[in-house]
């Protein structure tokens, strides 16, 4: 019996357990039936997240199909993460944060020049992480699509404004994802330092896979 609070509620055997450093990418193959727990170790860390079918990586996470299927923008417990072909890749089996964002996308060197100014071009960004990890397996820029931002809160105001609000995460909060098919998980532990989404302070996250 583990006394590790980050393991609370997890069953089965731990197959993989790593701490992803602040700003770093992470890629892992998760088999159908396995559960991936993401632990926000220090709180308010945005975990940018892409998913591909391991059998056919042209089938991948679709934010638009996912929100359309559930008629709601927020990803909550029970949300099926759908592919561009309408199949469930993973399900949010449990989450200690009410909901997660999937409309805000990932920061990139290029979009940072628009949001903050050209002085930010040389800063590290999530799309760099997505590319670095995906290139190892032959995927490239064509494979980057709208992603999930776990632990991020991006409400849409009545006039369409994207709300800028306090994060809703806290140290030690978790999200558990059950793989519904064999999937490839690609994560960018967001290096963003120009945005309150992670308190201007990127921090590590922990990835635990059980079965």
């Amino acid at each position, binding site marked *: 019996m583990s006394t590790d609070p980050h393991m609370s509620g997890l069953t089965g055997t731990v197959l993989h357990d790593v701490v992803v450093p602040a700003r770093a990418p992470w890629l892992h193959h998760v088999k159908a039936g396995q559960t991936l727990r993401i632990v926000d170790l220090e709180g308010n860390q945005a975990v940018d997240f892409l998913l591909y079918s391991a059998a056919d990586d042209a089938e991948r996470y679709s934010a638009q199909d996912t929100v359309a299927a559930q008629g709601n923008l927020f990803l909550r417990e029970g949300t099926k993460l759908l592919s561009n072909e*309408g199949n469930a890749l993973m399900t949010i089996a449990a989450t200690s944060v009410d909901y997660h964002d999937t409309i805000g996308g990932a920061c*990139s060197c290029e979009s940072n020049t628009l949001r903050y100014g050209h002085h930010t071009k040389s800063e590290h960004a999530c799309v760099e992480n997505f590319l670095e990890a995906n290139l190892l397996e032959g995927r*490239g*820029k*064509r494979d980057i699509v709208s*992603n999930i931002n776990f632990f991020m809160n991006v409400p849409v105001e009545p006039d369409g404004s*994207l709300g800028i609000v306090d994060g809703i995460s806290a140290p030690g909060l978790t999200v558990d994802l059950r793989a519904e098919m064999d999937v490839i998980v690609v994560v960018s532990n967001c290096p963003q330092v120009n945005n309150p989404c992670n308190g201007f302070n990127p921090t590590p996250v922990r990835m635990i896979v059980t079965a």
Partner: protein
Amino acid sequence: MTEALADPLSNPLAARDHARAQGGTVVESMPVLPPVADDLPAGVSPDDHVWEETIAAGGYATRRLTRGSRLRLIDVKGDAAASILIFNADMPTERLNVADTVKVQWNAYLGEGKLLLSDMGRVMMSIVSDDAGTHDTFCGTSNPATNLAKYGEGRNSGAFPSGRDRFLLGAAKHGLGRRDVHPCVTLFKGARIEADGTITPEVGPFAPGRTVILRAEMDVIVVIANVPHVLDPRADYTVTPLRASAWRGPVTGEDDPVRLATPEGLRAFENVEDYFRR
């Protein structure tokens, strides 16, 4: 039917005659070649008119447009839905990025003055005119699975083709494939977001003739699917023809009000101008 077709197997030229007899037929949804229209905006020369096509209900179309071109879309009968993919024509790995489009402009509702941004920090197209106001950046389009569930059939070759399948065909005609069909925006059909995240589709039907004009800020390939909104609550596959006209126009100038409207947008124009400084 011609007399020859009454006994087609005895006349080897009957098929040719029958085929040729169809030339010149005019139907509601078709391209007009060369492009002709009597309602181009004042000041637009017919010589600059490059595309005139009415896209069928359930149909799709694709076109390469040069920088400065205007693309006018008209919801002819009030129930069209223009789901759009955009690629940089010279480097199709650069494409519309819906997340950056809403995030960088701090707003997810499209309308006049809004920019459609690429994943390379550049503006691909800008909305220079819009009298519709109901557009959707959230829901994407239908796929074969959603149409199968809703209409009992979702195949591209069937009666209820999906937006994703339409996009795949349109993209394929530029040598692009499944990896290139990216998140889209849909014009003319809206999606309002409630405080708890609930999506309320706004599908009309609306007054006929609503019009959006887009300006190409780089050389682009557009792929347009005209299929029912994925959250259209109506049981029937409900969609009406969409008219597309395009004409050549001047590249956006330094004093353009859309270019200057916001600091983020101005930098998107500076980035695209830098790209063409070659």
